[in-house]
């Protein structure tokens, strides 16, 4: 796995979700408030790279999880927590889950997450 860890091997190609260069994240930048907590997040692109690494290492399920994560990278935290809570037992009907899946797919292009939710819907009342 020639490019792993990314932070070590290809730091020049990494960005924050806010478009900052990975190498620009320094203590000075944090102290000048040029870097905030919003910047310290993984991007969909980095998650896809990690998914490929996991896949190449023979871990398709981990890769799938990282690709679902890539879809969620741009989804607001509150929305994520809402979706999680809806997925818990007895919180939503099958129709409710199917609607949630459709919304997630339409709004965020989160096809893999939507598929997971549709699967969950089959087990719901």
């Amino acid at each position, binding site marked *: 796995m020639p490019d792993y860890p990314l932070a070590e091997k290809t730091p020049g190609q990494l960005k924050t979700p806010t478009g900052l260069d990975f190498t620009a994240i320094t203590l000075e930048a944090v102290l000048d408030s040029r870097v905030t907590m919003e910047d310290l997040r993984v991007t969909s692109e*980095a998650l896809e790279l990690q998914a490929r690494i996991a896949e190449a290492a023979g871990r398709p399920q981990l890769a799938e999880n990282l690709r679902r994560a890539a879809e969620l990278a741009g989804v607001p935290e509150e929305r994520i927590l809402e979706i999680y809570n809806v997925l818990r037992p007895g919180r939503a009907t099958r129709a409710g889950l199917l609607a949630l899946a459709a919304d997630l797919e339409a709004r965020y292009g989160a096809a893999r997450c939507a598929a997971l939710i549709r699967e969950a819907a089959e087990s719901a009342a």
Partner: protein
Amino acid sequence: MPSSKRYAARAGREVNRDSFIEEWPETGLIVTGSPYDPAPSVAIHDGRIVEMDGRPEAEFDILDRFIALHAIDVAVAEAAMATDSTALARMLVDVHAPRPTVVRVFAGLTPAKIVEVIGRLNVVEMMLALQKMRARRTPSNQAHVTNRRENPALLAADAAEAVERGFAELETTVGVARYAPLNALALLIGSATGRGAALTQCAVEESLGLRLALLGLTSYAETLSVYGTEKAFRDGDDTPWSKAFLASAYASRGIKVRFTSGTGSEALMGHAEAKSMLYLETRCLMAIRGAGSQGVQNGSISCIALPESLPGGVRGVLAENLIAAMLDLEVASGNDAMASHSGIRKAAKLMLQFLPGADFVFSGYSVMPRQDNLFGGGNFDADDLDDYNILQRDMQADGGLRPVREPEVLEVRRRAALAVQAVFEEMALPPVSDAEVEAAVRAYSSEDMPERNVVADLEAAGEFLRGGRNGVDVIQALARRGFRDIAEKILTVQKLRVSGDYLQTSALVLPGGRVLSAINDPNDYQGPGTGYRLAAERAAEIDAIPQALDPRAIGAEPAQPPLRLEETGDAAAGDNPREIVIAVGPAFGGALQATLLGLPHARVLEALIQGVEEERLTARVVKIRHTSDCGFIGHAGARLSGSGIAIGIQSKGTTVIHRRDLEPLDNLELFPQAPNLTLDSYRVIGCNAAKYAKGEPVLPVPVQIDNLARLKYIVRTTILHLKETEQVDPARRPQEVRARHA
């Protein structure tokens, strides 16, 4: 009450405070092989699993469905399932079957088949298999850091010490849930104070846990619990899909996650469905793999005493660790909750993970004393740290820790407590007093800590969370107050959220910030000469326990008063029948100055002479140079003695009363256990030697039997004897001496 005193004594032993029960399969109180466990089977139609372990798809429960959809590689399933279970079990221990090959084949197995395969292995084979199958080559360890008073200075000090001791991950939790943000904050600061920067987590309810991680106050989570039956899963208020989604949610922010499962939880919750613990745990592990988790903490975890009450419980716990490893999951292998009252039983259990090595040998070693552990005790705690380091040294096994000396520990503890004090002040949190800082440095437990204003702390904690104060705020506060190094190290870990490198299987962050995982440190064990081996530097670190003394310095201590025996010429045979020879060893009153117990040679010699003189005989001291053996020293003395009787004494104090006509290794009386000899014993030995010479009846000198003497003194005995033997000159005859003692 037993009538036999031996039974009564055993009844009082720690192990008999543990609970033991017989199996009761109908309730799931059985570790492996419930008669209600299904037989392995699989049927695949159009690339879809339509039957698994005897159950048709229409009857699948949620776990069956999730496992069938996500956890089994249908491309290899039919061939793998058709393979004889013993042949599969052999692959696990076959050094010619590389790990990736085994992982690929085992990806095609159903839960029942995996349990059947594991059933073919004994514990030693499982240990070999774990050594081969764990994902990361280098083993490591996780610490639990909590305290009953939730004191932030103490939390930070304990976290800093944990990192100094080598723990790669730190987990805290709360007594009162609302403390969570402050505890996470204290842990974060402590985690970056010592030699490295460990990953940290705070075990709380799922959505709060996620929030703390998003705020950068923690960097990983392992609270994602999974259960092996549908009912237990629902009681845990989750489904496999909700957990899978949650795992993706964490990953979407670059936060490491491992799931939690463990034998016994379903039986404890009353939902085991008459299945064995290991079968249900295998279903958990397959669901975890299916959810795409990189790893799991298992090994029964908080339920450990339940499998331990049953036949095969400890074996079963190793089996679940191994199954996780062969499913290619990172394993934090338990050993965290109290497993037994018995030290023997606890240590024996530990060996099953410690010797093979695990990604994290503990999913929480309590770095505090038991009373401060909010996870329910801690199977090993602060009091056991020396034992643990010594076990590493004994076995030359890497349990992830390093021995540390007190000054080093106190320094990092102080710095962590000071950093917390400064950050609390900068962030307008309730003050941490100087007294708290001082107490945190040297405390045994939170009992030693000044009380804090709990109401103010809880209010501040709530405010902290509401205000969205986060990791960047902490970094800024630290740097402003002169803790730039800590700020820098926290940032190093936070930066890894951007790269996602520690989302890979078995990831940890090394001191210096480099990520080590199953990707760049894959376990390549294939027998001797492969896999993880202690590098010379790491072996030296493990060996260098502070308790180890310089052997060259042992026995070199001066004695008071000193004794100088000057050799004045070859000793002649005596002709005085009232003479007792006291034959001393080659180093006596020379290179060595005191016995094993530290009795000065001058005093010992005086006591022997006094004893002889009390019987109105005379003593002549000669030094034997050609041997360091006690029997030969005594015999050489007897051959020179006018009475034919001699006392032989080695420098370490071992003494013999000898007679000329006996074989050298025979004796009249032998006192092999020098540690039990007092100056008065030596005086009586002198008396007895004289009585033998006079032909009077002799009551042998009473000697205490101390079966621990060898254990206590063998090292010193060996070194003193080595030093005596160094003085041997085979060509030199016994010497007359002149005693010059002050």
